[in-house]
């Protein structure tokens, strides 16, 4: 082990910023991070062991105790539930002889839930040792069981098990005409860099992650910083349940994304770039590394790019299972080899980002659009969309429709026309922008995809009339409690309280005051939380409570008060030990009147 880790640390040039990469490699090798490994890494990177333990305990894909040699994770996203996640998990448990959340006694296999894997259009999906397994069905489970029981190494598994489809259904402004290699950079150099930034400005392009900050303004702010050591970061930590467009963009349009990053570097004067790729997309890693190599070969990365006095390169950093790292300052912390905890602002990343350097963080789709704008000019882009939302939006459509997949639509497109496109009928409602977004009912399908109406990072989940809204809300609420980083009190404690309070109501133990208490709690979490995660964690409840108050009321008992726990179950241990089952050994949940 000592030699393995020594080699690993040398490969990572003794950089503590590479801690995540080092730990991922140790996890892959030993199925956990052994104590001795922590000691050795701490010593050689000259960081406290507590930083390493902190990181391991923060990220879902790193462990202090051994996982199975085959660590199977099943996506717990609502979209996987719609496609039969529950049944397939039960079948896996049965075939593999391991319970969800456990490691099989022989240590060969472990099974657990994981947050959305970004395979929402091809679920139920899972990961084996981090690699995506789309379209799980009984036949595949049988196949996987046999491979595991024979202990066939992962790289000898049939490749079709890992085949991830693009499902690119509708290409628009960007997807229909990708740029040629180097085209955007050449155009920018030809036009002049300041002129290109002006084009970007007049294009009206706003960040595609959902928040919608104007891209040219962000780049300009960063370029104006005194510190000339500037950084470009592409946020490919696409963790919002129901979103998968960045996976497709990086699978098929990676050149254009990297070109957009390089363009940004040229405009702001950056030498170093990072693609922060969510751990769930590690199946794309090697391919992306090859593309970067190709670009270096073509003189589009490295020194003297396109013969100009311009040096820039891109490194890929893999995440390790933490939704919060999609928040830009948490992402930067993670890039620095730390827990992904959102920073206090100000300072903003454009002034003090990665290692305190001015940093632009943008979404995959934003860089891709910027590259195209450098070629075609601002007016071309600004021509499409609405007054305040220019261009197109790439949507990840999933849930109850005949054709889930990627759809690019002009901003200002109505929900109804999107539903028509993807073959969704009998619709109950749509979750726009994922759990942190808005649930809209079927009275609101004339609303528009636009920053000024329904903003979305791309998640678009359709539910038909047979779906239970409270099940959906419950899934989302549990998701936030699981993904809260725990930094601030209202989110750390509040999301867990919210989960418990919603469970109480959904399980039929709520009384009149319980919905009031639920809403009060939602407001505190929303108002008081440190970052976007906490501020939106109550949205699933708030947006449905607003639209379907009667659904919540229907869950309540017609009594004034209901105990906060299961009284009779609380007597179970005592009953068993006293060997009693008489009437006095039981408690009714509500007093008989």
């Amino acid at each position: 082990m000592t030699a393995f880790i020594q080699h690993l640390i040398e490969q990572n040039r003794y950089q503590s910023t590479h801690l995540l990469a080092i730990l991922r490699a140790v996890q892959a090798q030993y199925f956990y991070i052994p104590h001795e490994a922590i000691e050795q890494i701490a010593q050689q990177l000259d960081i406290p062991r507590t930083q390493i333990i902190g990181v391991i305990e923060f990220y879902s894909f790193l462990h202090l105790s051994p996982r199975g040699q085959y660590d199977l994770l099943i996506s717990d996203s609502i979209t996987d539930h719609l496609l039969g996640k529950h049944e397939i998990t039960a079948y896996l448990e049965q075939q593999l002889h391991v319970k969800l959340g456990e490691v099989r006694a022989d240590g060969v296999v472990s099974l657990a839930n994981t947050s959305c894997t970004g395979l929402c259009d091809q679920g139920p999906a899972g990961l084996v040792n981090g690699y995506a397994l789309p379209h799980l069905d009984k036949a595949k489970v049988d196949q996987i069981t046999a491979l595991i029981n024979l202990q066939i190494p992962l790289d000898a598994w049939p490749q079709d098990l890992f085949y991830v489809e693009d499902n690119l259904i509708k290409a628009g402004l960007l997807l229909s005409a990708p740029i040629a290699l180097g085209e955007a950079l050449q155009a920018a150099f030809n036009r002049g860099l300041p002129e290109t930034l002006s084009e970007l400005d007049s294009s009206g392009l706003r960040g595609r992650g959902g928040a919608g900050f104007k891209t040219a303004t962000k780049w300009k702010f960063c370029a104006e910083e005194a510190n000339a050591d500037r950084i470009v970061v592409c946020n490919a930590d696409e963790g919002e349940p129901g979103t998968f467009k960045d996976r497709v963009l990086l699978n098929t349009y990676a050149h254009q994304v990297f070109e957009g990053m390089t363009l940004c570097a040229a405009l702001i004067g950056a030498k170093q770039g990072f693609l922060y790729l969510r751990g769930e997309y590690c199946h794309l890693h090697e391919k992306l590394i090859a593309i970067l190599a190709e670009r270096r070969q073509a003189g589009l990365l490295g020194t003297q790019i396109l013969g100009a006095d311009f040096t820039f390169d891109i490194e890929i950093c893999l995440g390790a299972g933490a939704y919060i790292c999609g928040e830009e300052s948490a992402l930067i912390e993670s890039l620095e080899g730390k827990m992904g905890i959102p920073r206090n602002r100000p300072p903003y990343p454009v002034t003090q980002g990665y290692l305190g350097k001015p940093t632009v963080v943008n979404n995959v789709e934003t860089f891709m659009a910027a590259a195209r704008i450098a070629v075609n000019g601002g007016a071309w882009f600004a021509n499409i969309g609405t007054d305040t939302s220019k261009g197109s939006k790439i949507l990840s459509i999933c849930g109850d429709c005949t054709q889930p997949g990627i759809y690019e639509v002009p901003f200002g497109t109505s929900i109804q026309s999107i539903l028509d496109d993807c073959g969704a009928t009998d619709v109950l409602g749509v979750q726009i922008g994922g759990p942190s977004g808005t649930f809209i009912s079927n009275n609101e399908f004339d609303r528009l995809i636009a920053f000024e109406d329904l903003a979305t990072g791309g998640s678009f989940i359709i539910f038909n009339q047979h779906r239970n809204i409270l099940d959906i809300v419950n899934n989302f609420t549990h998701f936030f409690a699981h993904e809260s980083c725990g930094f601030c009190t209202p989110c750390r404690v509040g999301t867990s309280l919210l989960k418990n309070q919603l469970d109480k109501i959904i399980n039929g133990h709520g009384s009149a005051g319980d919905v009031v208490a639920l809403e009060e709690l939602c407001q505190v979490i929303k108002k008081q939380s440190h970052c976007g995660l906490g501020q939106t964690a109550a949205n699933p409840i708030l947006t449905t409570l607003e639209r379907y108050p009667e659904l919540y009321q229907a869950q309540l008992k017609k009594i004034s008060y209901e105990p906060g726990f299961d009284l009779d179950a609380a007597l179970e241990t005592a009953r068993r030990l006293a060997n009693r089952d008489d009437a006095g050994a039981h408690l009714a949940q509500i007093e008989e009147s």
Partner: protein
Amino acid sequence: MSNKIRVATTSLAGCFGCHMSFLDIDERILQLIELVEFDRSPITDIEHCSNCDIGLIEGGVCNSENVHVLREFRKNCKILVAVGACAINGGLPAMRNFIPLEDCLKEAYIDGIGVENAQIPNDPELPLLLDKVRPIHEVVKIDYFLPGCPPSADVFWKFLTDLLEGREPSLPYELVHYD
């Protein structure tokens, strides 16, 4: 029937310390007794609650009998008050919540030093223990909380005189203590 305010009190999983503290109002009890009449309470030995205005509950909920008593109080008292740390958050009895109930019972009745005729009591007359000690507001609705271990005599006095004189009860800084 007199038109005095009827007050009932009880101690669930508590130590009667709150009751003792209540009696520490000393000679003021003479004033109080002009205005209130005690119903079910360790002070009166009345076994069951009739209709009351105020119920004062000391202690948390640790067994099935506590649940029944608490329900009797809720049913009969217009205003139910959680008195003291144990009623409010389980208090010291709740420190057993970190030891599995099975271990507690085995230590006490089976494996403990000096145990004779080892068996876990199973007489149907005995209330069964809940797996955890709970605050009373997790079982019935509570209208007011008087913190303290115990709340001082002045807390009882201030609270009751506020209610008797028709004011919304409130405790000034000096009277709010958790210890």
